[in-house]
């Protein structure tokens, strides 16, 4: 069953990191990616650029609006994701806890809807 692990972190903390600290975080992520790839559960995963690069699109009554920034102001912001194919929720939770951001931020784990064939 596929699960998406949405990675939330306080961006301000992120941007205040020194270059070395940031490089260390990337290294941790590379280790995680390797772990889940070797385990055969890795489907996809990407970091995202900061929320100030986001644009939110809404279409109401045929009118399209573009808003600068994320869909809502939140205390923690979406910074990346992994899609993992696991046998059950417990396996997904086990890997989610190993995502480096889990130590300071939040990882939301949600099943991806499957349609019968």
């Amino acid at each position, binding site marked *: 069953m596929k699960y998406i692990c949405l990675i939330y972190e306080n961006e301000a903390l992120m941007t205040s990191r020194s270059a070395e600290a940031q490089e260390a975080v990337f290294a941790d992520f590379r280790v995680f990616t390797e772990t889940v790839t070797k385990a055969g559960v890795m489907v996809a995963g990407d970091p995202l650029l900061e929320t100030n690069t986001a644009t939110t699109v809404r279409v109401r009554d045929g009118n399209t609006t573009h808003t600068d920034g994320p869909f809502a102001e939140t205390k923690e912001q979406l910074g990346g994701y992994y899609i993992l194919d696991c046998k059950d*929720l417990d396996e997904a*939770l086990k890997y989610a806890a190993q995502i480096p951001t889990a130590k300071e931020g939040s990882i939301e784990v949600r099943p991806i809807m499957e349609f019968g064939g």
Partner: protein
Amino acid sequence: MGRETHTQIYQVLQSHNGRILGYLIRLMGNFDDAEDICQDVLESALNHWQENGIPDNPLAWLHTAAKNRATDQFRHQKITGNAEALLIPDSDTTDKNELLDQSLEDDLLRLIFTCCHPALSENVRVPLTLKLITGLSLEEVASAFLIAPRTMEQRLVRAKRKIQSAGIAYEVPSGQQLGPRVDSVMQTLYLMFNEGYFATSGKTLMRSELCREAIRLATIMQRLFPGRAELMSLLALMLLQDSRSEARIRTDGGLILLQDQNRVLWNKRMIAQGSALLDKALHLRQPPGRYQLQASIAALHVEAKTPDATDWNQIALLYRRLLEMEYTPVLHLNYAVAVAMSGNVEHAMKELTHIEVELENYFPFYCARADFHQKTGAHDDCINDYQRALTLTDNESEQGFVQEQLETLISK
């Protein structure tokens, strides 16, 4: 073979409900079918057993009935389902009964762990466990939580949906997962027990039912997962607290304080069981957890022959350790009370200043402080605090208690 009463049959059915439902969930692979079949089986048992008496092996009877209905349903729907689950290896009768017992025990465990999964919110784990494992009706579970049956039903439906759509496995956890999952079950059973023990309103019968069920499930867990000090301690805690249940409630429904209880009414067998279990837990020399500390406090209370003989010093020390483990203002209040009871009222008063703000609307805070004022002879302060307390509760027996204190004080 006489005519068994409805109550006796009902009790037997309730005690096996979890195992049969657990088995059916594994067979059918979903809650709805399993619950429907389980309901059928129970109704059929009720009818048959009222006519013919309770069979020698009720569990085997129920299991066969469940298996037959499940097989019928599979044939009907032409799906194979979890067909191997229908097979129990052939062997002589005694072995077969043992294998059956073992297999159904595993199914019960699967169900307990699933209902107590940490991915389910706390407020749904307890009612879900009650509904599925103890076989209480929706109305009974709802009344235990003082909410409408319809609301409870929605909550349970959402929980079951989450279990299935989030892919919570219907398995007994193993390896590294087992520890945290056992913690989650313990927490759920602790909440269930407290719900029954501390409920200040709601039906009295339901309250003791909750305590009984919590103890029953904790006993099963303790038997199946031996060598865990916290699990033993949790069961010990429940036994030691529940031992006082006959002495806690007045005929008018009011609560009797620990120091005013008639100790003759305390259940000595439960106290002996609880104390022995706690002893065993302590001997394991595992790092003490919250249940071990709480059980130790409960043991100190019940072991005292009279209220004056209570070892308040030791109790205060234990509260201090609990606070270091997980700080809450209410726990801090309990600590202050223990300190005062051990004779150091000045120190206790000082402790209260730390929690004054958080507990400014908490009825027991003012009762405690009033009591401290009384100990130091601060008559007026005592009256003030009791009057403040009066404004903070709707509970009749609590109000009655405070009125009594005030009348005694004002007449002095």
